[in-house]
C-alpha cells in the first residue's frame, strides 16, 4: 500500500488524492502502522469510494463499485451490529443512505468526506439513529395496539416511495377480488374459460389450467405430462388466453386497479 494514503492522514490530503486518481498499480512499501490488514482494508475502501464517485449516480458502473464497497464494509467487521428485531430495517436504510450520500449529498446535509472520517465512523451513528427510530416506532405501535386492537395495514410499511405500500393498503380489496375471481373460475358461467383450449383438445382449457395451477399447485411440466402435450403449448395458453380472460374479468367486475400485466391496453 502507499504509506501516506491512510484515511486519517490529514497532512497530505491533496497529494493523496493525486495519487489515487492515478490508475497505476498500487504496489509499494508496507504501511507504517503495525495494523497492516486493517490499513489495507481501509485503503481498499477508500479506493472504491473514489472509483464509485467517478460514475453517475444510478449507473450500473457506479453500482459495481458500490456493491464491492458494501462487501468490503461488511467484511471489515466495523459496522455496528446488534441482534434486535429491527436491525435489518435500519441496516437497509443505512445502505441506502450510503449510496445516496457517498459522492453527492442527496438526503444528508453533506456528502461523505473520507478526509474527515472512516466510512464506518460515518455510517454507524446513522445506523444507531435508525435503530432508535425503529425502537421508538415499535413502542408507539405497541401503545396504539393496546388502545386499538386493530393494527392498520398502513403502518406496516414505512417505505412510502415503494409501490407495495399501495398493495398492502389495498389488501382487503385483494382478498375480495381473489374470492370473486376463484368463484368465476370454478363456475365459468358463460363458458369463457372452457371455450379457450388447446387446438383439438377441449379438455385442456383455461379453466382446467388455472385450477391445476392454483388449487392443485401443479407445475406446467406436470400438467403437460398428464395431458400429453408440449409444455410450450400450455405456456402459450396460460400466457395469452388466460391472461386476456383474467383481464376481461377484472375489467367487467370493475376492478380497475387489478389490471393483468402483459395485456395490451385497449
Amino acid at each position, binding site marked *: 500500500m502507499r504509506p501516506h494514503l491512510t484515511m486519517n492522514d490529514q497532512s497530505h490530503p491533496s497529494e493523496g488524492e493525486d495519487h489515487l486518481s492515478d490508475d497505476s498499480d498500487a504496489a509499494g512499501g508496507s504501511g507504517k502502522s503495525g495494523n497492516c490488514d486493517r490499513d489495507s482494508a481501509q485503503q481498499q475502501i477508500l479506493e472504491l469510494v473514489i472509483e464509485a464517485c467517478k460514475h453517475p449516480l444510478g449507473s450500473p458502473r457506479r*453500482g*459495481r463499485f458500490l456493491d464491492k464497497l458494501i462487501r468490503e464494509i461488511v467484511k471489515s467487521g466495523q459496522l455496528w451490529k446488534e441482534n434486535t428485531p429491527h436491525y435489518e430495517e435500519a441496516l437497509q436504510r443505512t445502505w*441506502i443512505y450510503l449510496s445516496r450520500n457517498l459522492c453527492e449529498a442527496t438526503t444528508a446535509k453533506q456528502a461523505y468526506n473520507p478526509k474527515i472520517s472512516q466510512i464506518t465512523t460515518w455510517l454507524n451513528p446513522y445506523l444507531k439513529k435508525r435503530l432508535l427510530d425503529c425502537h421508538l416506532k415499535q413502542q408507539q405501535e405497541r401503545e396504539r395496539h393496546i388502545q386499538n386492537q386493530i393494527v392498520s395495514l398502513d403502518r406496516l410499511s414505512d417505505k412510502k416511495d415503494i*409501490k407495495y405500500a399501495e398493495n398492502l393498503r389495498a389488501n382487503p380489496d385483494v382478498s375480495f377480488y381473489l374470492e370473486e375471481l376463484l368463484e368465476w373460475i370454478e363456475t365459468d358461467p358463460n363458458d369463457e374459460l372452457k371455450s379457450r383450449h388447446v387446438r383439438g383438445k377441449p379438455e385442456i382449457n383455461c379453466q382446467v389450467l388455472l385450477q391445476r*395451477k*392454483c388449487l392443485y399447485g401443479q407445475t406446467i411440466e406436470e400438467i403437460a405430462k398428464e395431458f400429453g402435450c408440449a409444455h410450450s403449448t400450455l405456456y402459450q395458453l396460460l400466457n395469452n388466453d*388466460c391472461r386476456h380472460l383474467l383481464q376481461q374479468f377484472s375489467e367487467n367486475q370493475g376492478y380497475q386497479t387489478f389490471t*393483468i*400485466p402483459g395485456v395490451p*391496453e385497449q
Partner: protein
Amino acid sequence: MNYENLSNLEPLPMPITQNSLQIARQFAAQQRHPQRQEQVYFNTLAVLAVHDYLEILSIKTDLTECDSWNPAMRLFTDAADLYIKGLGKIECRPVRKLHQNQATANDNLSANPPVNCPVPVEARADRIGYIAVAIDEDEKVARLLGFSPTADSGELVLNELHSLDDFLVNLEHLFDAKVDLNQWLMNVFNPDWQPFEAIFDPEPLEDSPGEIENPIPSKLGNWFKNIVETGWQKFDQGKQNLEETIFPDEHPNFAFRSGGNSRQNLSLSGGQASLQHRFPEADVARARLIDLGMQLGRTTVALLVAIAQQSDRTVRVHVQLHPAIGQRYLPPHTQLSLISDTGKILHKSESTVQDLCILLKDFDVEPEESFSIRVAIDDLSITENFVV
C-alpha cells in the same frame, strides 16, 4: 482500478427486513395450496432482496407490471420477476436453505446444500437474466448467490453462476445498447441501424439505372434461389407467374406499388414507399435486421423505425416490421409490441397468415423517456430499448 477485480463470487448478504417478511406472509396467505404458499413466500422474499439491492445501487425498478406483484397472476404463476426500468425483467429465483433438523431427519443426501435451482416454464420468457437468492430466515439474510443470463435448461446450476458483478456488467451493456433517438436527429447512428435503403435495397443506388442486363436484382435473385432450394416454387413456372406471386395486387398493410412500375422499383423501394405513404413527416428513418431463431431454421425480419421531432420537443415514432428480403411474408403470429419503461405493453400487433408488414400505431415520446419494442415469435423474443 482494474474492473476484473470486481468479480466476486462471494454471495452478497442482503438484510431481510420485517417489512419484507410481512409482505411475503401476506402474499403467501392469499394462496390456495400449501405448496403454492411456500413458493410465493420465498419468491416474494427473493424479489424483495433483489429489489432492495438495486435500490441501494439507485438502479430503478418497478413492480407494477410484474406477475410476482399481481394478486391474480400470483395465484397461477410461479414467477419471481422484477422489472428494471427501461431495460427488462430480471427473475429472482429463491434457493431455500435446509434447516439443520430437516436435513438430519431426511437421508444423508438432503444434508447437502441444493446444487441447482429450478426455473419454471412461466419464468423463462422475456427475462434479461436470473439471480439466485439463498433465503436464510434464521439469520434474516438473503444472499444473492449469482447471475445467469439464461435458464434454457430449466434450472440454474448454482456452482456455475456468474458473479453479481457480471450481472451489473450486463446491465451496463443493456444501458449502453439503448438506442438514443436524439442521436438520430443529429445523424449519429449505431452501425446496426442502417438507412433503410441499405436493408431493403442493398444495391448501390447509382448502379440501378444502368445495370439492367440481369433483370433480377441480386436479393431477389436470392429469393429465387431460396424458393428453388426449398422447393416451394418451381422455377419453370414462368416469369409472369412468379412476378404475380411475389407482388400480388392485394397488399393489406403495405403500400408497395407507389414507387413506380419497374420491377426493380417495386421490389427495392418497398420500405421507403410504405414509409412515405404512412409517415410522410419523418425526419429520420432507420432499419435493422433481427434474427429470430425458429424451430425450423432461422427467420430474419427488418424492424423499421422512423421519427419526427414535434414542436414541443417530444418525438413522434413510427414502427414497422417487414420480412427481410428473401421472404415474402412475415412468419404468422409474429408479434410487434410497444412496451413502456415500466414494462407495460401499450400496444401489440400480430401478423396473420399472409402479412407483408405489420405496424404499431404512431406514438409520442417525451424527452428522456424510454420505451421498448419487442419482436416475438413463439417463445423467442428480441427487445430493443430506446430513449429520447
